[in-house]
């Protein structure tokens, strides 16, 4: 098409993109200032290299432990969901068994319920098991996901049946077909589920906040919220803490951008 250059479009997009990222820039600048220069009027716009704000975050919080808790929780949830959801999704997409549609409907019904309805009884289960303030508490309920089953079932349904049939004729059982044929073929779906689960797990606040109240057992989300409660006004430290807490997922996003976007697009178009 012979088009004139879309200068106006670029201008609008560039200005709004800048507005979108400006808060982050200000966060970085503030995190490198002293408290007195952060609260100077009029403001100064240059960062000052006060890296000790970052060190202070580690003094005020068991940040290392919380970081590790968040990594283990996220990794555990991702691994569990990718395995368990893909198994169930394969069964719902390909295997025939009595009650399949009813059970799938039951799985889907979980999606319709706001998650706050699960919290009180889940908390009681954790308390009965003696799991409050433990890694199990923040991992185990997150191993299961109706959304993941639904998402991956769509992927399995879209795969051609011929390869499976050939493997079946060669005498491969359902587990082998699932493990060595279907899983590799459904890789884009698995990656999409993995990145979305990672995003939600890393940023999760409500459940970790409720079950793990011991600072050493908190996740970053809950720990930061607690830090904010105590050091309400030390903005440079708060900005430093919030920056390093959100950076890992932002880094993963930058590397796996396409998979993130496809995952999100799938939740929309296949929903």
């Amino acid at each position, binding site marked *: 098409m012979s*088009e004139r250059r*879309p200068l106006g*479009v*670029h201008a609008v997009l560039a200005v709004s*993109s*800048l507005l*979108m*990222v400006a808060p982050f820039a*200000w*966060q970085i600048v503030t995190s490198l200032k002293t408290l007195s220069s952060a*609260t*100077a*009027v*009029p*403001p100064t716009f240059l960062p000052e290299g006060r890296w000790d704000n970052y060190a202070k975050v580690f003094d005020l919080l068991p940040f290392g432990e919380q970081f590790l808790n968040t990594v283990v929780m996220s990794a555990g949830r991702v691994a569990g969901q990718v395995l*368990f959801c893909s*198994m*169930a999704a*394969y*069964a*719902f997409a390909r295997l*025939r*068994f*009595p009650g*399949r549609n009813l*059970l799938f409907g*039951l799985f889907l019904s*979980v999606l319709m319920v*706001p998650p*706050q*309805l*699960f*919290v*009180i*009884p*889940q*908390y009681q*289960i954790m308390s009965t098991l003696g799991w409050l303030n433990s890694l199990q508490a923040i991992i185990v*309920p997150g*191993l*299961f996901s*109706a959304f993941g089953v639904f998402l991956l079932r769509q992927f399995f349904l879209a795969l051609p049946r011929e390869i499976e049939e050939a493997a079946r004729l060669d005498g491969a*059982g*359902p587990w082998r077909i699932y493990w060595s044929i279907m899983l590799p073929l459904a890789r884009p779906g698995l990656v999409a589920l993995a990145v979305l689960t990672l995003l939600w797990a*890393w940023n999760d*606040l*409500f459940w970790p906040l*409720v079950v793990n109240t011991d600072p050493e057992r908190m996740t*970053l989300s809950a720990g*930061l*919220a607690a830090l904010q409660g105590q050091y309400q006004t030390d903005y440079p430290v*708060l*900005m430093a803490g919030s920056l390093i807490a*959100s950076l890992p997922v932002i880094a993963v*996003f930058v590397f796996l*951008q396409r998979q993130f976007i496809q995952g*999100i*697009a799938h939740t*929309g*178009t296949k929903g």
Partner: protein
Amino acid sequence: MSDGGGPARGSRAEALWGYAFIAPTGLGLAIFYLWPVLQTAYFSFTEWGPFGGHTWTGLANYTRLLGDPEVGRAVLNTLTYTALGLLGIPVAIVFAALLNRPGLRGVSLYRTAFFLPVVTMPVAVAMLWRWLYNGDYGLINQVLAVVGIDGPNWIADPATALYALVVVGIWSSVGYNLIIFLAGMQAIPKELYEAASMDGAGRVRQFFRITLPMVSPTAFFVSIVSVIGSLQLFDLVFVMTGSGKAARANPAYTRLQTVVQLFYERAFVTNDRGYAAAVVIALLVLIAVLTVLQFRLQRRWVHYV
């Protein structure tokens, strides 16, 4: 003979495999999700003692809930936030349409900028905006001061707090919605645009005549999802106001408290879990009513081809 028995035995084995495959997720969902829903419903008819244990009190929690001014305020705040949050949808549509322009360069750069808030931890987002909104030293008021405006203490001023929150909500979700709309727009057949431009329709006309009707099913989906999400608002408010006494020190607290935040306080701060259960059951009803309402209204504005 063996042929007759084969398929039957084969399908029985297949059925067993099927159950085995769904067992982990099935049991997990039953224990941690389905059974808890029933338990929460039951708890909503009970009162909890200070040392655990609960007694059946019938509809007492629900009659209390209907007369509780705090619940009334929380519902009103949440509904206002939800309604205003829908303004993010046209914003996302417009930006998606701009990005969808054929042959536009730098799309992935712009998309990344819009998507950054989506992948940022909500707690961090809330802390960042609390700083930007700070009445004395916040960047927003400092910029306003340059043009001679004395900005309010945004999230501590009852007149502005909720709207300030809506802005943050839209800022952090517009990228997500934009991705969904972009996927929807890319699925629109190119021929429609070609035919329209043959007929002399300009870009703006094409947007209103083709793009908008064609993405209306996507907009319907996005509005369902974002209403459900907004009704569960918690993280932003929790970080901006905190909970308990400290939170109530914020003069705008009554304009910010949401249903889920109230649930959190009743369930885990004051340990009034029977009442908290009634609060989330009310939330479930609210979500169900608004979702059904949207499905009813969709005929008026959603175009299906």
